[in-house]
């Protein structure tokens, strides 16, 4: 019996992500025998409430024998007599079916008279009494007796047979718009009183909580909200449907669709079915919007909305349009000013629209309460009916709006993703040596534009940069201006595996993920935000890095270059991620205990001729001690000599000194050279390798190029009272090179 469908439910593949609610309701039904209580499940149109109730019913019918499940769906156009007939018949059929374990009775069309006959020969003959009472009440035309007898049926039955019942009343708040709401006495009030008597557990559904807020104390019932499927499940659902319908889809486009329809499973099914019927794939935003607008204007979504809303009055459309346009709601006084209607008529219209769950009133404000799809439907209707535009014109207006929104959503989604990726990537910085070109967009484009670059091995560059070991990073949302497109990520770390002031470093990354290149305005915005951040982090040097998903404009690159900032686009970032991933997979785990083997040597040089040779001699000894070959030692010595003579030249202090510190780590030799004067000459006069042609230039100027070429990392740091130059030679790399 488990597989037999009792009430009409959709295919299992089309029922997504409601298992937790199913389980909760099922447990609610079977565990509340002793202490019955009610749940009110509130959710928008076609969000899946009915499907959920029917499935709970099925599970209770097939999965246990203790609680009798009863499902009833309210209809809008029934009289009290119709309702009583229908309700009583449904109740008795389902009760009888459950106890006899004969599900076919539930769906069988059996008249009340026939039911009476059927029950006569069974042990449920007591139920016949309900039918007799009903017949008598109808005969006398006593509407209240008819109603009370019907809604009291489960309560009388439980008293008679002592078998627990679980009531599931679907679309309960529709009663507000039916004959049940007639009269000020409020039949509904009577109904609610019966439900809340505490004799039976129940689960009822509706669009809004308004009914309960007004008629009963909200604390007397548990109110649960059923939202649309989340984005992940919506996309999964659409992918399943696209396979079934043979539609080619882009996942990002499906994600936009999911947001547009708020994860509403019925809308999702309609759009996918419409794509199939129109023979369209959903590969681009435009594909999606084309399918959507047709479905909204002339498809099943439009038809369904038309059927339940039935808005004919132009003033109702005008009123709705005003509310849609007002983001925070509008007061009744403002509405009266804007609408050419009498106060009473406006109140009546608002009240009617609230009953349709299109508007809600709270805090003295009238607000739009519908979903986005209904909003589009109303806007489309407003454009044609009120403004007299053609249908096509109205459709274009909706498509334009939603295309722009979809485009923005795509950008924001990617933004969230890349920002998260950046946080993850920075956390994995751990002293790796990576090509510097990955941080220089202009050079990268010049050398690799048009080439397929995915892996680190695709980049053949000797010029390396050593990443710091990042100890923590965070998304710096507090400094981001909401109207700007640059997200900030701040990472704290240390260079050279040295946890001291000198090696502390902060990387600040500005990320632009929207689908447009970083322009000069973005750079200015980033710089402004950096200035704010810098106030908090005065101590450590800051490495500034801009990441543009779609690259950079020429002007932006020029400005970033002048500021000495790193620049990386999506391709460079992908390669960087791969490189770091590879290094994490292949490198031995970094042993922080390696710090114990660090050795430091310090030399203070006077500013005098050939003093640099003293430093060179010292570093030669150190190099031999750590097993470097002669050529590498000469390279380091040459770079050091250049650094020293540069420091001498720019030392302004009389009898000035140059401080050299050599730090030997497990995998690198770091040279720190600091003077007591003005900045080092960091200008690289000739970027070309043919410096012979530049004979006319000053004799100096080649030194920086030599240092950069001979060492793995060269950087300058401004210090109080001078400048520090740090050069690193990666020992591991040399050993590997030798082995090769």
């Amino acid at each position, binding site marked *: 019996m488990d597989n037999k469908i009792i009430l009409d439910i959709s295919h299992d593949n089309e029922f997504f992500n409601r298992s937790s609610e199913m389980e909760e309701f099922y447990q609610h039904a079977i565990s509340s025998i002793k202490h019955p209580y009610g749940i009110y499940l509130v959710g928008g149109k076609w969000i899946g409430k009915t499907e959920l109730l029917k499935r709970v019913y099925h599970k209770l019918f097939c999965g246990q024998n203790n609680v009798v499940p009863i499902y009833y769906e309210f209809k809008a156009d029934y009289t009290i007599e119709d309702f009583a007939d229908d309700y009583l018949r449904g109740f008795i059929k389902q009760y009888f079916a459950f106890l006899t374990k004969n599900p076919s009775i539930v769906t069988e069309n059996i008249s009340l008279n026939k039911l009476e006959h059927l029950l006569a020969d069974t042990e449920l003959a007591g139920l016949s009494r309900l039918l007799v009472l009903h017949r008598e009440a109808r005969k006398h035309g006593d509407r209240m007796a008819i109603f009370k007898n019907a809604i009291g049926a489960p309560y009388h039955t439980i008293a008679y047979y002592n078998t627990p019942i679980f009531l599931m009343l679907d679309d309960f708040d529709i009663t507000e718009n039916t004959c049940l709401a007639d009269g000020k006495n409020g039949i509904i009030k009577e109904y609610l009183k019966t439900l809340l008597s505490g004799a039976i557990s129940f689960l009822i559904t509706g669009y809004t909580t308004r009914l309960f807020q007004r008629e009963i104390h909200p604390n007397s019932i548990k109110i649960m909200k059923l939202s649309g499927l989340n984005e992940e499940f919506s996309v999964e659902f659409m992918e399943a449907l696209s396979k079934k319908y043979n539609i080619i889809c882009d996942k990002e486009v499906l994600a936009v669709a999911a947001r547009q329809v708020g994860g509403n499973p019925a809308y999702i099914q309609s759009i996918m079915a419409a794509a199939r019927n129109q023979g369209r794939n959903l590969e681009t935003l435009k594909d999606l919007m084309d399918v959507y607008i047709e479905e909204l204007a002339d498809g099943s979504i439009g038809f369904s909305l038309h059927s339940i809303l039935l808005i004919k009055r132009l003033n109702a459309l005008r009123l709705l349009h005003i509310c849609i346009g007002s983001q925070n709601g509008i007061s009744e006084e403002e509405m009266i000013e804007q609408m050419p209607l009498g106060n009473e008529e406006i109140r009546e219209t608002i009240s009617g629209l609230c009953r349709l769950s299109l508007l809600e009133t709270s805090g003295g404000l009238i607000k739009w309460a519908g979903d986005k799809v209904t909003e589009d439907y109303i806007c489309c209707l407003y454009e044609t009916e009120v403004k007299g535009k053609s249908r096509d014109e109205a459709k274009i207006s909706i498509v334009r709006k939603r295309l722009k929104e979809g485009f923005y959503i795509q950008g924001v989604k990617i933004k969230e993703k890349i920002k998260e990726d950046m946080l993850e990537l920075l956390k994995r910085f751990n002293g790796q040596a990576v090509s510097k070109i990955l941080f220089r967009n202009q050079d990268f484009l010049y050398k690799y534009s048009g080439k397929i670059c995915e892996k680190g091995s695709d980049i053949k560059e000797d010029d390396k940069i050593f990443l710091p070991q990042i100890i923590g990073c965070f998304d710096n949302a507090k400094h981001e201006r909401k109207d700007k497109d640059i997200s900030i990520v701040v990472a704290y770390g240390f260079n050279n595996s040295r946890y001291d002031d000198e090696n502390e470093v902060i990387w600040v990354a500005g990320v632009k993920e929207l689908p447009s290149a970083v322009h000069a305005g973005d750079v200015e915005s980033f710089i402004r935000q950096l200035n704010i951040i810098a106030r908090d982090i005065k101590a450590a040097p800051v490495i500034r890095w801009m990441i543009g998903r779609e690259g950079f404009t020429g002007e932006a690159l020029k400005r970033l270059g002048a500021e000495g900032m790193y620049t990386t686009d999506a391709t460079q970032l992908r390669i960087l991620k791969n490189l770091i991933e590879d290094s994490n997979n292949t490198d031995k785990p970094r042993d922080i205990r390696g710090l114990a083997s660090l050795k430091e040597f310090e030399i203070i040089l006077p500013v005098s001729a*050939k003093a640099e040779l003293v430093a060179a001699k010292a570093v030669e000894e150190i190099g031999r001690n750590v097993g470097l070959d*002669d*050529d590498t030692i*000469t390279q380091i010595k040459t770079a050091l*000599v250049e650094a020293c003579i540069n420091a001498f030249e720019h030392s302004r202090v009389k009898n000035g000194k140059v401080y050299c510190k050599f730090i030997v780590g497990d995998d690198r030799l770091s040279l720190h050279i600091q003077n007591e004067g003005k900045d080092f000459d960091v200008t690289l006069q000739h970027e070309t390798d043919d410096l*012979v042609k530049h*004979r006319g230039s000053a004799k100096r100027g*080649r030194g920086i*190029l030599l240092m950069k070429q001979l060492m793995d990392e060269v950087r300058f740091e401004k210090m109080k009272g001078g400048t520090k130059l740090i050069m690193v030679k990666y020992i591991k790399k040399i050993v590997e090179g030798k082995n090769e």
Partner: protein
Amino acid sequence: MNRKSTSFKELGECVIIYTDNYLNDIEGEELESTCDALLNKGEKKVIIDFANTELINSIGISILIGIMEKIKDKEGTLFFSGLKKANHNIFDILGLTKYVPIFPTEDEAVKNMMTNNL
């Protein structure tokens, strides 16, 4: 100022100049003076041998470039020899190897200079 002159050796039409352990501004200027004197004497085939040179700095390189230009102006020929691998690399980085032929040893440089008809 009493300056130590750079050593050199004349071998037929060739002249071989030997640089010191460290080619910096001072040593470079001495090398340049020696070259000037030899060029003025009419020498046109010059070999600079770096076999004794451990370190070269960028000022020394600048002076070498000056020497290269002077020899070129005199329509002479300049060869380098005996460069250590690291120094050869430096000459490469700074573009000198494009303009001056480099030989592993002094002998090879001389042999090639003798057969060079340029």
